[in-house]
């Protein structure tokens, strides 16, 4: 039973040896390639498999009012989530939740691509308890996720100043600063939340952990953790009492704005604009409808009129002409022009006055706000000199207030401006001098202008956080001139014929000026600017009520309320320690939250 011959056998054995060795060599080469040549790549892939980087979110800085009230904080919210589930697990869990808590207890829909599906965000503690105690035992993939959400305990208060937050958009992520954001992060969209985004946000940390294929954490590396750096808190200059008084005093039915500045430093004490909004709407998951309405066409609630409203100033601008005339020696407190007979014809145009005032000097003309007096004054003053003083008071220029969206410039027309629009004529100047022409101002500019009159000729730079800029002394306006203007403004409020008598306060001497601007609307825009106390003023206020009627009736009471709140608050001494607003489930900072793994 022998095989073929012995030589034949060993020849065949040799072929089998070679075949086996060749196949093993193939495997050996492949192993060399995998384990030696491309080792680094596989080692990296292996690390990437097991090392998960979890972001530790930096708590966002809080925003305080001057006296420590918390205007913006971080609230803990609970969300019901389902992790790594199949379609049938999802359906079963959703059915169980709906059976226990009602049809609308689930919002999310199933997606195979998402590791974690949010079934419902921002649920109450009852829901958390029901899910944890009753439903989760049968549906182990359910989880309650803790998130941090911005919360504004005062709701509408300060809304235009604080702004609001929203989910980051493509363009935010594409920006150089966008690398710090994950796709469903929130970012400041307007107001201080946007202006100081980089200050408030802080720096997210990273936590490293070893995870298995199912995503369970097997080991953590606390020593390698990069802690989150919390965002910086902002302590604003806003006086919450004054702010709320301003918002309360502005009529609900009309649009309007109030700006109150510390006349010496430019610190913003109140900045209100109506209509306003509740910034919580933009972060809440329960207010989609409200959010859509606010963002929709035709809604003007998001316009910050204090900075971006452009108005005719009406008679509140008459102090410019008064200052210019006094400074240039064109008049004094005793001289007068031909008496006011209620109207004046200049060229082919008839200008009307608010009454028949007779012969007036400068102080009296401001007190009763006589247009005829200022029309005469304009003729001796001329356009260039009027414009020079308007510019010296900062009209037609940015105030330098840091805000998003940035303040409007307004419009201070130049000769060039008129050349492009049919040419300059004296009639143009006459309209400008009484605040009815092309001149457009913002309430913030008017507050600064009033502050400059009050503080004896310094242009302040309004600010709401940080250190005040050094006020700039206005060249070419002497303290004596402004003293006279202030005297006239005192008489507007306190004089027997004054148009601003409704701004009078018992406890402090108020000085101001009314304005009634005939704009495009049927009813005039009502203005009032004021400062107080008359001697050594500390506060300057500008208020406008769109379509409110005359300044003396519609705007003066608003300013009066603001001043009353300011001086009442001054009396009750100012606490320096932050007070915490009371709200459910709030804390100074939400604890660091780990949200998801970074890619």
């Amino acid at each position, binding site marked *: 039973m022998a*095989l073929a011959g012995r030589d034949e056998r060993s020849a065949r054995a040799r072929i089998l040896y070679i075949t086996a060795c060749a196949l093993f060599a193939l*495997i050996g080469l*492949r*192993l060399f390639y995998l384990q030696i040549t491309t080792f680094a790549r596989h080692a990296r892939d292996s690390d990437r498999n097991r090392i998960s980087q979890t972001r530790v979110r930096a708590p966002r800085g809080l925003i305080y009012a001057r006296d420590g009230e918390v205007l913006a904080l971080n609230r803990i919210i609970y969300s019901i989530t389902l992790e790594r589930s199949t379609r049938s697990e999802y359906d079963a869990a959703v059915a169980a939740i709906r059976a226990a808590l009602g049809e609308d207890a689930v919002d999310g829909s199933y997606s195979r691509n998402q590791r974690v599906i949010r079934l419902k965000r921002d649920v109450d503690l009852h829901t958390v308890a029901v899910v944890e105690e009753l439903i989760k035992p049968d549906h182990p993939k359910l989880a309650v996720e803790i998130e941090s959400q911005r919360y504004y305990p005062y709701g509408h208060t300060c809304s235009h100043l604080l702004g609001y937050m929203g989910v980051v958009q493509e363009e935010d992520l594409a920006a150089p600063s966008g690398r710090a954001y994950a796709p469903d992060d929130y970012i400041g969209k307007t107001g201080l939340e946007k202006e100081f985004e980089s200050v408030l946000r802080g720096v997210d940390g990273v936590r490293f952990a070893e995870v*298995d294929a199912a995503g369970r954490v097997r080991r953590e590396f606390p020593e390698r953790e990069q802690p989150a750096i919390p965002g910086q808190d902002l302590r604003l200059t806003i006086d919450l009492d004054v702010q709320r008084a301003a918002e309360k005093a502005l009529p609900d039915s009309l649009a309007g704005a109030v700006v109150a500045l510390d006349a010496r430093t430019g610190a913003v004490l109140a900045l209100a604009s109506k209509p306003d909004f509740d910034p919580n709407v933009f972060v809440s998951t329960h207010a989609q409808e409200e959010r859509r309405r606010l963002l929709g066409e035709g809604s003007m609630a998001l316009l910050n009129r204090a900075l971006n409203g452009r108005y005719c100033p009406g008679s509140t601008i008459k102090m410019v002409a008064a200052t210019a005339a006094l400074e240039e020696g064109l008049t004094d407190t005793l001289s007068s022009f031909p008496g006011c007979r209620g109207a004046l014809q200049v060229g082919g145009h008839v200008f009307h006055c608010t009454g028949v005032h007779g012969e007036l000097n400068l102080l009296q003309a401001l007190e009763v706000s006589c247009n005829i007096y200022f029309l005469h004054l304009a003729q001796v003053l001329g356009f260039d000199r009027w414009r020079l003083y308007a510019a010296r008071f900062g009209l037609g220029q940015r105030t330098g207030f840091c805000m998003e969206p940035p303040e409007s410039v307004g419009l201070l027309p130049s000769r060039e401006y008129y050349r492009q629009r049919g040419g300059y004529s004296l009639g143009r100047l006459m309209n400008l001098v009484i605040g009815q022409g092309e001149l457009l101002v913002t309430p913030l500019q008017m507050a600064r202008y009033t502050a400059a009159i009050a503080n004896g000729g310094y242009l302040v730079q309004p600010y709401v956080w940080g250190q005040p800029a050094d006020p700039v002394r206005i060249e070419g306006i002497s303290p004596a001139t402004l003293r006279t203007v202030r005297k006239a403004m005192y008489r507007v409020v306190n004089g027997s014929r004054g148009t601003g008598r409704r701004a009078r306060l018992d406890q402090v001497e108020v000085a101001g000026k009314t304005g009634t601007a005939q704009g495009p609307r049927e009813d005039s825009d009502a203005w009032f600017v004021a400062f107080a106390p008359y001697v050594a003023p500390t506060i300057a206020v500008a208020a406008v009520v769109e379509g409110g009627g005359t300044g003396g009736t519609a705007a003066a009471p608003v300013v009066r309320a603001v001043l009353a709140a300011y001086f009442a608050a001054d009396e009750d001494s100012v606490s320096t320690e932050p007070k915490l607003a009371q709200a459910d489930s709030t804390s100074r900072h939400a604890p660091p939250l780990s949200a998801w793994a970074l890619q």
Partner: protein
Amino acid sequence: MLPQLRDLDRPLIGAVLALGILGITAVYSANFASEVPVLRTVWQKQLGYGLLAIPLAIAVIRAPTRFLYAAAYPIFFGCLVALLAVLVFGTGEDAHRWLAIGPIQLQPSEFAKVGAILAQARYLADTAPAQCSHPRVFVASFLIVGLPMLLVAPEPDLGTALAYVAPLVPMLFWAGTGPAALFCVVSPLLSVVFSFEPAWQELTPYLFALYILVSAAAFFYLLNRLWLILTMVGLNLGSGLLAVYVWEHLLRPYQRDRIVIFLDPESDRLGAGWNIIQSMIAIGSGGLTGKGFLHGTQTKYEFLPAAHTDFVFAVIGEELGFVGTMVVLALFLFVILRAVSIASATKNRFLSLTAIGVASMLLFHVFVNVGMTIGLMPVTGLPLPFVSSGGSSLLANSLVIALLLHAHLNRHDF
């Protein structure tokens, strides 16, 4: 009755024991961190089967050669019956592969591999070398491997089915079949390869046509009878076309997936391609010396699927590195070459052919299993002999080694 150790092939025993111990270690490492308690004790079961294998192996070594020769066909027949029984009474979760005998669950398909080798060796031993190129011999040989293959084909395991064919060609070659006749045996298989569309894409029809032409020319040169030439060309054409039909209509989707994924693992990174990718990451990240015993993160954190069974080689690659994989390969190569050398030295034709069958079976398993873990072969259910956990596989492979030791012990007897 115990055999004297000094009479046995001690290097072979040493190599196989080393592989078995490495296997138990790797199985322990693959499961020690598992959250499933049953898996943590798999290595103990493996050790138990290893111990159980020793008396069986001694019995085979000590049995008279006459007896083994006589029992070859009955054993083969018994295996076929067991495979049939699996089809009828099979247990197991998703694969009908198991047969429960009391508390012991056995996989008859593993033992049938041994049975087929014995039957094939017996048949070829009874055939004179000069007759081995006769078509009758091929038909009978194909019948012997074809029967168990047909019976395991319904099991969802392509790899095991193919494992029966693997020893056929080397055994025929060893029995004395001429190169022309061997080409006739191999050419239909090549035809299947060249007609395989997923591998060659749009080149397939041209490649297949070219192969048919070249093989026809070869047949014309090698064979002298026209009817034989025409039959072979027809067989080649038929097997190629049949393969296309089987691929499109008979293979189950997951079987097709395995092959497509093997050709392009990235096509389904998180799905079926996951196994291959994770296995290559595990082995590649082992580097030169590995991450250390019990420190393989791919294994411990369950990125590596079937770590203690089909992908156990990846555990060794990850934890022991290139050094470890080379040691394992060297041990296997030694066992296989030793088997061929035993076959060379053994005078008894039946035992000699059995040794060749054993060598080729081991070679096929090692190449396909290791090839699968490193992306050279598609994913199949073939275990790595002596290393993968699995009692039936360990017992069957121990019997196979016992056959080698038996042949070595009796190498001088006819």
